[in-house]
């Protein structure tokens, strides 16, 4: 599975409790759409660190990196490229 597929699958099953792909648009804000609350971010970070073997610093935990599928995918790709 591509990074995007894995991220989408995680968000769909963990926050939206569904596998219906139509429930999640790649550009949609996870917080503003109610998919994720402020504690949900911790779950997402644990998933990304384990799944993609990256370390996420405190100052990287910002909505620009993590608040939509597109943002998350671009962030993970940047982190992996920097390794």
């Amino acid at each position, binding site marked *: 599975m591509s990074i995007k597929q894995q991220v989408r699958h995680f968000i769909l*099953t*963990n926050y*939206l*409790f*569904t596998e219906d792909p139509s429930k999640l648009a790649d550009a949609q804000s996870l*917080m*503003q759409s*109610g998919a994720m*609350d*402020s*504690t*949900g*971010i*911790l*779950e997402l970070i*644990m998933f990304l660190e384990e799944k993609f073997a990256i370390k996420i610093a*405190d100052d990287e*935990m*910002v*909505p620009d990196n993590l*608040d939509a599928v597109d943002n998350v995918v671009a962030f993970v790709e940047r982190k992996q490229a920097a390794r």
Partner: protein
Amino acid sequence: MIESLAHRGPDGFGYLQEGPVGLAHARLSIIDLSSGDQPIANEDQSVWTVFNGEIFNFIEIRAALERAGHVFRTQSDTETIVHAYEEYGDDFVHHLNGQFVIALWDSRRRRLLLARDRLGIRPLFVQRDGRRILFASEIKAILAVSSQPRRLDVDGLAQVFTFWSTVGERTVFAGIRSVPPGCMLKLEGEREELVHYWHWSHPAAADSSRLSFDEAAEQVRELMSDAVRLQLRADVPVGAYLSGGLDSSIIAALVRTRSDVPLRTFSVVFDDAEFDESSHQQIMVRHLGTQHTSVRCTHGDIAASFPRLIAHTETPIVRTGPVPLMILSEHVRRCGFKVVLSGEGADEVFGGYDLFKEAQIRRFWARRPESRSRPQLLRRLYPYLRHSPVGSAAYAESFFGQGLRDVDSPFYGHSQRWVTTRRLHAFLSRDVQAQMAGCVPEAALSEMLPPDFARWSGLSRDQFVEAQTLLFGYLLSSQGDRVAMANSVEGRVPFLDHRVVEFANQLPARYKLRGLKEKAVLRRAFAHLLPPEVGGRVKQPYRSPDIQSFFKDGRAPAWVEELLSPQRLGSAGYFDGSAVQRLLAKCRAGRAIGFADNMAFVGILSTMLVEELFLKRGEAAAAYNAGLASAAAAHN
């Protein structure tokens, strides 16, 4: 009907059949143990009453009524009700200081009055069943005789899955209404009138006060001292809960000032440090020299007692917090106590919750939304949470910045909480979602707003909404009356003496929230009675473990797995089975840590228990009850 309420009154039963009316009473004898049996009548037996609760100022009312010529036959507080009605008519409730529900039959006028105390400390439900009106302290008594079909009220469920409770008259049982706090239902022939005799009210924009901060603190001190004096009235010993927080410590300290007898105190302790407050409890125990009993509550205890809890709450709930308090009241009763005082209500009355601070910070920030420093104040909230919503500053700003400028919304302080709770709706089945289409839980609340609400201070508006939702519907009910009465224990709440509420509601917001210091005027009033570790302590809300209580090594108790199996979920029809299975998988993996997941699990499980315990008819529910009782016994 009355047999189903034996837990509320195991000390005796009484009945009256008079014309078209039947009154029944289960007695928990606390005042006038020898002659206080109910129903009780006036001198010529034309007025009859049964009541649940206490009239704390019955001595003063009685003296006034005797001066007016009324003749009393007992020493009970109940008898004051019938004479006060004769003397004052329907206004008699204004003379009562207490926590009560009253059914009063005036045989001359052939009218029935059903009255509930101002703050709704005691419960009261009614249902029209053909030409009959059924009324009782708990819904199970109505279900015992009603011929109406048993159905879940989906709008009520939508409210629980938004506010944590139903609001106003609604319950989760279709056709069964709650008489709201501060209301009297008058029934005469076919006519029915609901009268609000008391309102939770604040003055318009109360920024000024004729009292200085210190003068206000002095009055709080006097009022609370008198409230405790009245609420210690009983012909049985009175104990107190001691959570380790400011509020119950104040109550215990006030009791201590009134008696040389060592006070008996009770508390819950947890193994998990995130929830446990035993170190502060011990500080107060040493400070006051109380005779203290603490009850350790494990994850297994919470899971095993949960079905019994729902049998008492009679509503779905979204947190397990009431369970340890039900376990605690069981110990209170075993220790020989029928009455305990608690600190409930202080947070609503004096502005104790983080929600109030959060809303004040957001209002402050909203005046200059471009400010970078104002949202930094949010980082001072929620220091007690392991998974804090302000753990990441950027996320906190993003989360709490939603709807920032919507400061005129009546629900400004609460709407974000409700969005989080409302995530439960995603688990509802398509059928239930379709039935809920068009249901806006906030609309019911909007109808309850007083006409001058928009002119109240922001904190007053938040306090009102908090009272109508969490206080009335949850804390005083599922986490209050119901869990105490489950074990035949009466909880008393001096902070909700209506004189205290009325006085505090008149105070300016800045007397309650001083900067970000909550309950400032209360702290000032009682600093001299408390050790500094408690008097200056930042509020830690009472909570208990939710999902963690039900999953050990990735497995839930068999009854949970069975109740949440696809078959059972499918036959009940309320939830989307596949969504629930995904949530369960997350719970088993130990990954469900957020507020929303915890509320979803507890909400779904408790809704399924409401279905099993109350909505399924006859033998199925009885068999299920018996099975749960034996499962709980096996755990113990």
